[in-house]
Structures are given as structure tokens and as C-alpha cells.
């Protein structure tokens, strides 16, 4: 018992010395030059420099409900009914549109097949309107995100642009006559044409993925555009072959707010 007490006392002494020594080292008390010089050296240690930039608080992506993703076709591809090479063929996708721009598609889903290859479901610019298909990821380009959404109301004859779900633009429009109706459904803006020579289409035209179901023999496939006009007095009204017409000032204003890839809902 006495031996144990002595051992404990010795251990305590060693520990106390160790703590004192460490404290002395950390505080500079053990410096041979003396306390005064050590304190002086401590005093001249510079403070860390301030940062040149302020890193803001990291934030999440937020509500993804209003984000749409589009991409372009990098190499000709077959769109299929399911994410499998053997699935039924829905459409053939080329790299270019009839206007010579990149062929853009809206992404609506993705899946990996049994061999680990990624397939992407895209909205197709084909008839019947609303068709989707699966294409191999490797045939597509970079993904781009948009937060805008254009809604065309055929009853009220209006076009409304939403950003993050909030209205930022509204204008009266002309739509197709009864025998050439503007198709209803979910589409997207495919390209942007400008500086062409045609007063009929006004100063600017957006191509969409929507196609006329009645004018199937129209040049270049009968795609529905959103464009200006040389007859603004007809707007709003049911006056076109299926295209969505706007006053020239309105289409130019829309151009500043919208980008290719923006989803378009015609209802």
C-alpha cells in the first residue's frame, strides 16, 4: 500500500513537470534569452493577413421546380421508345435544324441500362406533337439550364413569360385560324433567327419544337414559330397559319428575357 502511494506520488511529480515544461515551451518561458526578449519577439509576430475576398455562405440550389435542362445533338442519333438499343425507333435526330442551327432538345429524364450506359429522355421535334424518346448520352452535348417558361394561352390570346415561376412579360398574340390551329402541348424554343430579310416575320423569330398537324407539307416541316409581324393591326386574333405572332416591340422585348431551350406550353 505504501509502495503504491509512493509510485502514485512519483507519477504525479513527473506529470506536473511535463505540464510545466510544455507550458513553459508554449509560452516562451523556457527561452534562454530570458522572459523580456521572448515577450518582445511575441509582440512582433504579425497578425495573419486579411483575405482579399469574402467567401459568401454556401447556399443550396433552391427550388428545382422551375429549372429546365436542354442540350444539343452532337451526332446523329436514333431516339427510341425505351432506354435500350433494341427498343422501337421513335425518330431520327440530326445535328442541325433546317435553319442551320444546332438541333436542341429538352431533357426530361435519364436512366442507365444494364451495361451502365446512360440514356437521356428528350422531347422530340416531331409529329405527333408531345413525342419523347431515349437517346444515348454520348450523342448529346453540354447540358444548359434555364429558369424561364413561356405560356401561350389560345383562349385569352396572350403569351406570358415566367422566370422562377413569376411573371416577367405578357403580350397579346395572334394564333392559328380554326383550319390551321396552333397546336396545344408542351414544347421548347429551338432557335433564334434575326437580321433576315422578311417583313412578314418582323425583326426576329424564335423556332419552336411544335409542328402544325395540318400543314405537314409546309417547307422545312411546318414548324411553329414565335415572331414579329408586318400587320400589327390584326393582333390579338386568330389570324395565322399556326405561328404565334407578336407586335415587333413585344418580340424584341421578349428577346431580351428569353433564351433558346426555354420550355413553351401552349394551352
Amino acid at each position: 500500500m505504501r509502495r503504491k502511494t509512493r509510485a502514485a506520488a512519483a507519477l504525479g511529480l513527473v506529470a506536473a513537470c511535463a505540464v510545466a515544461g510544455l507550458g513553459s515551451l508554449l509560452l516562451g518561458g523556457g527561452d534562454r534569452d530570458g522572459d523580456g526578449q521572448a515577450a518582445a519577439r511575441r509582440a512582433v509576430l504579425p497578425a495573419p493577413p486579411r483575405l482579399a475576398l469574402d467567401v459568401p455562405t454556401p447556399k443550396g440550389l433552391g427550388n428545382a421546380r422551375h429549372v429546365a435542362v436542354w442540350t444539343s445533338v452532337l451526332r446523329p442519333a436514333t431516339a427510341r421508345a425505351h432506354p435500350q438499343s433494341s427498343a422501337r425507333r421513335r425518330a431520327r435526330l440530326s445535328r442541325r435544324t433546317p435553319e442551320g442551327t444546332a438541333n436542341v432538345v429538352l431533357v426530361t429524364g435519364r436512366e442507365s441500362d444494364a451495361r451502365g450506359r446512360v440514356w437521356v429522355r428528350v422531347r422530340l421535334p416531331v409529329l405527333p406533337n408531345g413525342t419523347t424518346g431515349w437517346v444515348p448520352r454520348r450523342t448529346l452535348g453540354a447540358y444548359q439550364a434555364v429558369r424561364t417558361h413561356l405560356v401561350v394561352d389560345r383562349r385569352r390570346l396572350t403569351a406570358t413569360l415566367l422566370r422562377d415561376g413569376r411573371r416577367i412579360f405578357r403580350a397579346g398574340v395572334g394564333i392559328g385560324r380554326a383550319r390551321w390551329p396552333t397546336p396545344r402541348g408542351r414544347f421548347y424554343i429551338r432557335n433564334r433567327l434575326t437580321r433576315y430579310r422578311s417583313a412578314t416575320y418582323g425583326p426576329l423569330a424564335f423556332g419552336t419544337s411544335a409542328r402544325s398537324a395540318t400543314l405537314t407539307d409546309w417547307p422545312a416541316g411546318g414548324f411553329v414559330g414565335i415572331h414579329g409581324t408586318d400587320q400589327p393591326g390584326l393582333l390579338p386574333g386568330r389570324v395565322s397559319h399556326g405561328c404565334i405572332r407578336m407586335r415587333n416591340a413585344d418580340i424584341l422585348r421578349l428577346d431580351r428575357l428569353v433564351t433558346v431551350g426555354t420550355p413553351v406550353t401552349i394551352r
Partner: protein
Amino acid sequence: MDFLLDDLDIDGALREAGEHAGISRATFLGGTVAGAVAAFAIAPPAEAARNPDIAVLNFALVLEYLQSSFYTEAERSKAVRGKAEDAAKRLGSVERAHVTAFKDLLGKKAIKRPAFNFRGTTEAERPFLKTAVALEDLAVAAYKGQAPRLRDKTVLAAAVAIHSVEARHAAWMRFLFGVQPAVNAFDDAVSKPEVRRVVGATRFVVARPRTSSRRRPRFTG
């Protein structure tokens, strides 16, 4: 010590992406990549001569664009789940904060965000983790390579502050991928040309598609 891509490219994730895009292993490991990454050609020579820090900061900004776009796309794809998804969300938010900070600091001298095609690596878990490890290791090595070139101490302090964060990211992604987070006593730096070559070889940085034209419309009218 020579930097080798294989040192950085855990399990060949970047090389796989490059090979997927039709780039040979020989080209990837040793050759030059035609049409190198324009985004890394950063500040004009006159500007860089006046203030070399601008070129380094823009170089860092491109790497932050690359990382933030990668994690953002992975989160949006919803193809990455569980712990990898949690990491993608967290790291994405941090990399986006880095981008904001660099853009604020550089103001009008900040280069614009390039377009990125991650070629499916954000859309399946294993390729995502492999590529994340490679990108984080690349960022850590790149910051280390550029930090000694910085003249302004406050910029250097900022770079060091971000460098340690990137190192944590690298360790986290290595852990999730199942490789050793800490292997060496000392890490090598990577030069700017080497980073440019590695990133260029992946073909992750791409030109934006041409979506405008002057052709006369032929829509239904």
C-alpha cells in the same frame, strides 16, 4: 518531380472520359490536345503583365466554374444518391460560393463561365465519384502550383484558405470512392500548362452550340 496524369487520375476517370470522346490513351498521357481549352487562355498579356495576380485568379475561377458546374449538374441529374448525393450538394454549394467570391473580386476582369459537357459522369454514381476525386485532386494541386506566384498577400491568404477547403473535399470524395485520403507526406504541385492539358484532354470544356442564325424563317407564319 514530373507530374503524371496517372498520379492524379484515380482509376483513370478523366482518361476514360477522354477516351469516350475518342482521345487515345497516348494522347491523353503525353500528347498535346489540339484546340486546347480556350477558357484557360485567360487574361490578355498586357493585363497579366500589369498584374500577374489577375491571371492566377482567373485560372482559379475556371477551376471553380468546372467544379461548381460538375456538382450542380450531378445534383440536378438526381442520378447520384445517398452519401454521394449529400456530398454533391454540399460541395456544389461551396464551389458556387467560391465562384461568387472570385467573380466579385475580379469584377469586369472575370472571365465568363465556359460550357461544360461532363459526358455522363454526373449521371451515374461510380463515374461521378471517380471524376470528383480527380477534379478535387487537380484543384488542390493547381492551387498549390499557383500560390507561390501570387504577389498580393491578401490574395495569397485567400488562395490558401480555399486550398485547404479543396483538400478537405478531395479527402471526402476519396473516402466515398474507397481510396486512401492521405497517402503522401508531401504533395506535388501542378503547373498551369499541365492543368490545361489535363482538363483539355477530358473535353469537358466545350464550345457553346450555335443557336442563332440569319436565315430567313420558314415557319408556318
